[in-house]
């Protein structure tokens, strides 16, 4: 039986140069009759890091779920030139890997078994993983400094270690597009930086494309090439971090009182207590 190598190229035919990794045109999503996203446009170039921001309930996670193929796939989404709806689920899983906001940690599961789950799209239905799959997992674990962890039980790891294991599973999937839903929300500030630096390093080394949602605006701005601000299901701003992270936009859409100061890697957003009227 022919098995795909552990390579990271998408399983579909090589898209033409300049084809974006993600193209969303006029996406509408309604859940239970309530519109969540309305006419959303989004383009992510290959190798780019785009971060979606927006207040609670703006539809950030829904947008990520739609791109990841977890919602009834509308025609609005194209991945590497192929309409998402035309991709079989297994094939999509070889192109797109998702790290959920708070992934389920199955009780008792070892790190090795957990990361092996990432090989699922390469393992024949009803089959079992090959030594090549196990080797691919060990290679990923080594790359993320998790080499000694493979026998450990996932549930016993610290938050930062866990986040690296979640990333390892996504990398083991061999996908070139990484969807990260609040990748740092469970971490302290040092581990937040560790994880984002790691993602950025992997992105540069392996030509990954990153689409993330984040709440911490300063951090988001330091790592993203471009940002998209959602509010009430619509795109209200898109562009480079300095274009999106402005005091006016944040006041309008977050109803936040902030000061934006320039930083070395992007604008820094500092909350300021509002003056009482």
């Amino acid at each position, binding site marked *: 039986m022919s098995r795909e190598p552990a390579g990271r190229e998408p399983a579909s035919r090589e898209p033409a140069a300049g084809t974006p990794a993600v193209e969303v045109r006029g996406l509408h999503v309604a859940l239970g009759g309530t519109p969540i996203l309305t006419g959303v446009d989004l383009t992510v170039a290959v190798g780019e890091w785009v971060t979606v921001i927006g207040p609670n309930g703006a539809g950030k996670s829904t947008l990520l*779920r739609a791109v*990841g*193929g*977890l919602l009834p796939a509308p025609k609005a989404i194209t991945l590497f030139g192929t309409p998402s709806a035309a991709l079989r*689920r*297994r*094939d*999509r*899983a*070889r192109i*797109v*890997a*998702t790290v*959920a906001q708070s*992934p*389920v940690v*199955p*009780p*008792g*599961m*070892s790190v090795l*078994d*957990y990361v092996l*789950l*990432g090989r*699922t*799209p390469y*393992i024949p239905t*009803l*089959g*079992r*993983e090959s030594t090549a799959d196990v080797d691919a997992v060990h290679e990923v674990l080594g790359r993320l400094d998790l080499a000694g962890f493979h026998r450990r039980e996932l549930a016993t790891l610290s938050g930062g270690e866990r986040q690296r294991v979640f990333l390892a599973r996504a990398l083991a*999937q061999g996908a070139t597009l990484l969807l990260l839903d609040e990748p740092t929300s469970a971490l302290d500030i040092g581990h937040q930086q560790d994880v984002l630096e790691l993602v950025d390093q992997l992105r540069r080394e392996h030509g990954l494309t990153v689409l993330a949602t984040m709440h911490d605006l300063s951090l988001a701005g330091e790592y993203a090439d471009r940002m998209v601000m959602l509010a009430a299901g619509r795109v209200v701003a898109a562009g480079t971090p300095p274009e999106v992270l402005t005091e006016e936009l944040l006041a309008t859409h977050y109803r936040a009182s902030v000061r934006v100061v320039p930083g070395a890697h992007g604008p820094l957003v500092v909350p300021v207590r509002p003056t009482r009227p």
Partner: protein
Amino acid sequence: MRWLVAGLVAVLVALVVGVSLGPVSLPPGSVAAELLNLFPGVHLDSGLTEREIAIVTELRLPRVVLGLLVGGLLALAGGCYQGVFRNPLADPYLLGVAAGAGLAVTAAIALGGAGRQGTLSGLPMTIPLAAFAGSLLAVTMTYVLGAAGGRRGSPAMLILAGVAVSAFLSAGQTYLLQRHADSIQPVYSWLLGRLATAGWHDVLLVLPYAALTTVVVLLHRRELDVLAVGDDEARSLGLHPQRTRYLLIAAASLGTAAAVSATGLIGFVGIIVPHTVRLLAGSSYRVILPMSLLFGGAFLALTDVVARTVAAPSELPIGVVTALLGGPFFVLVLRTARRVLT
């Protein structure tokens, strides 16, 4: 691999012990020789008399083999339900599946006259199919009721729904038993779980369904590991979780139905065995499921030895023995699973 060897050894031990012990005790070595003689081309001198050989091959062996099959099926179904529902307490009995199968068998006997000869032996081959229909009805009711509590329902809701469904279907069964008391005498012993009257026809009755269930469930053991991370993540890994879930529920329910139609209501095997395997060999369903099949068989065959020797010359119903063991075990699982359930 070493767990596979351990499981096979357990099955062999259960086989020899189960055939050796009884009102007439036979030396295990002779029994082992006689069992080997069943293979074509093997001729060993076991030193047993004609009558003793008949006890081995016609009385005890079918009983032990049926115990192995039924125990394996119930444990496999339990492990499968636990994975499918992501619920440590899922079990053919607690989900009401066994009660559904029991009601269907009782109805088939009471209304269809399948038990006319005054014994359950020689049941038509359709009885397991009726039981399958009953078990599917029950598991559907439990699933729908259990999910009604929320968007997907909590693990505790599912078990409570199972208890309610179980009580409801058992009441239906009791009603049938009352109304058809005369034609249904044999069902009483069957209700408490019985292996006592097992013959080769019972084994043949269960075997095809057991084979089908085993093949389907074991082929999906890796998919059950993927389901452990939740439906969304399973989907983004390329799986069709709901499709897999329905197929596995049907397979586990078929196995339960076959077990129930052959031996009646034997509870707790589906809780005791998979959890013990989990403690010993880890949490991956790739290991849990085949080991549950082997150790479940060995467990029930050995429990049957206890049931028929502890109060000799009379026999305890085997369902009573598994319940005596399973009750305390269930409390233990409940205590460790508290975090998952709330």
